């Protein structure tokens, strides 16, 4: 792996939440790289820390949480920037957020401001990060909306979010995120609230962005189908740890961690017929305040033994594929 392909590298990230004198280790030592022009998919169930990882990179964490340890390095054109050391609302972070790294949120209705027009909200981003004047900003906003496939952008730009349909709102959000041609786009479950036909439109759009602008995309999802369609690299998270990391071929064809394997076996796959066997994972995810010792998946894992009482280190299977398990599955 060449270093000049990597645009954001995260090393040993630990983000903890503090509530009622208790500490939730939401992200507990996570390392991965986001590469230029590639899509990195982060998969996991709810509560596994995938969204917190994204907010850590964007420095959008809520007040009661803190990055305790680790490095987030943004390899910009002007040299490396340590994002974790920047002030949350300092000038540097604000100049990066929204222009170099931008984010799409899950629910466009709550992410857009209902009292401003779509055009204003896209233009706002341009106003902060570019030198364009008002007329140019308007033109640029219209161009962006057109690229996103919104009909009649000249009129639509003066409308408010409630006048848009769900899919159009999400496209308007992507337009906002793409306004300054970011190097990295972080998408936090961008299509979970949308219908499949609209989801397909959004995916097509994201694929296009990746090809045309060489944008690095970090896509957070819980849907293995989405991973298959879009990902180049995959990170599987469970209870704040990365349990498996590799290219999409590595992870989906030769899942090494029992959790990845169980996850793949637990979903019905279209085209495999009515008699396909789906194998649920037994039990449920543990309480984050009352974690099991050692490997977090051990209590639900069919292969666990006494050695799993210690948190296993990451071991690599090939150049691109690594797993955090003492008993990695044999490639079938």
């Amino acid at each position, binding site marked *: 792996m060449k270093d000049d392909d990597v645009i954001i590298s995260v090393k040993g990230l630990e983000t903890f939440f503090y509530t009622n004198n208790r500490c939730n280790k939401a992200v507990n030592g996570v390392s991965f790289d986001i590469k230029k022009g590639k899509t990195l998919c982060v998969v996991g169930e709810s509560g596994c820390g995938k969204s917190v990882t994204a907010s850590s990179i964007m420095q959008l964490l809520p007040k009661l949480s803190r990055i305790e340890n680790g490095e987030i390095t943004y390899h910009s054109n002007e040299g490396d920037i340590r994002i974790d050391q920047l002030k949350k609302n300092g000038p540097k972070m604000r100049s990066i957020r929204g222009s170099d790294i931008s984010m799409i949120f899950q629910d466009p209705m709550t992410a857009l401001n209902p009292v401003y027009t779509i055009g204003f909200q896209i233009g706002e981003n341009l106003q902060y990060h570019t030198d364009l004047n008002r007329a140019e900003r308007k033109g640029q906003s219209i161009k962006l909306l057109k690229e996103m496939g919104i*009909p009649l952008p000249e009129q639509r730009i003066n409308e408010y979010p409630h006048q848009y349909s769900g899919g159009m709102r999400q496209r308007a959000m992507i337009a906002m995120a793409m306004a300054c041609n970011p190097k990295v786009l972080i998408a936090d479950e961008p299509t979970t609230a949308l219908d*499949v036909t609209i989801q397909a439109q959004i995916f097509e759009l994201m694929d296009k962005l990746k090809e045309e602008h060489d944008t690095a995309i970090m896509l957070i999802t819980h849907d293995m189908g989405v*991973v*298959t*369609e879009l990902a180049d690299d995959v990170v599987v998270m469970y209870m704040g740890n990365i349990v498996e990391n590799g290219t999409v071929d590595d992870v989906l064809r030769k899942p090494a961690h029992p959790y990845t394997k169980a996850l793949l076996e637990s979903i019905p796959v279209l085209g495999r017929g009515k008699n396909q066997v789906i194998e649920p994972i037994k039990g449920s995810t543990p309480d984050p305040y009352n974690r099991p010792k050692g490997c977090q998946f051990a209590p639900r894992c069919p292969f666990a033994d006494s050695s799993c009482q210690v948190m296993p280190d990451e071991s690599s299977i090939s150049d691109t594929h690594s797993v955090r398990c003492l008993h990695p599955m044999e490639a079938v």
Partner: protein
Amino acid sequence: MSEARETILTLKDVETHFPIKKGVFKRTAGHVKAVDGISLEVYRGETLALVGESGCGKTTLGKSILQLVKPTGGKIIYNDKATERDLCRLSQKEMMEVNRKLQIVFQDPQSSLNPAFTVFGSLQDPLKTHGIKSKAERRKIIGDLLESVNMRREQMDLYPHEFSGGQRQRIGIARALSIEPDLIVCDEAVSALDVSIQAQVLKLLKDIKKERNLTYIFITHDLSVVEYISDRVAVMYLGKIVELAEVEDLYASTMHPYTKALLSAIPVADLDRRKKRILLEGDVPSPVNPPSGCPFHPRCNQCQDICKKVIPSLKKFETNGYEHYSACHFAEEQLSQ
């Protein structure tokens, strides 16, 4: 599957329109045609899936069947082996009786359980109204029910917040099962759950069905789940059924362009099956003011003149020896593509 099947429900031109009130005098300005003339037969012991995008009327149809929303037209005939009754014309008292046989599992397990009641408290009400007087007996029945949905008997004295989402959904299923229904409407019963939990609930639903010879009407937008759980599928678009077929048949020989697009849009977790997406343009039109002719024509890539003028009816075809219904003027052409 061609032997004579007993119908449990027959829907005839069911319509559920919601009036839109406007102005000071609450003048009716139009109707939202949520369910617009649906005819359908549900056979005893099968799982019929209703699929479609949001706003296509699938939930309203499910609720109309149970009379949770009163249909504005048509007939829903329920056959309980002895008599056939039109659910739309029953008195409240008669409906109570029938309700014992027809139950529903809701999408959001969090909001469908009362947070102030223990599980026992929530589950005993249906038993009480349907005539089980002694508390000890109710406790026994509920304990058995919880065990049948893979939970522990003691958990009946806990409150909903003490359970995880998957457990809550299983309590919802237990509640629907408590008075031994014939037919359960599952309204997006697994959509709110995490993937690993979803599998548990799906498997449970399948097992229970076999054990108790239930009939499901399974409402969902997830076609991968449909393939796993159902026998027949009805695809809905703007309040109408556009295609109805046996599940294998629907996937193998699709006869409506909408179903085709829907199937191609689903991300499949199988690297060997990555395929070209058929992109639909635009959104689902408003059901207040549906397009003329075929409701799908503005988004259809094979739209022709006739589609803009004539509403296609649901016609019967035969593919691979199965009955297959499609509401497309060019249904047979779809097969050859």
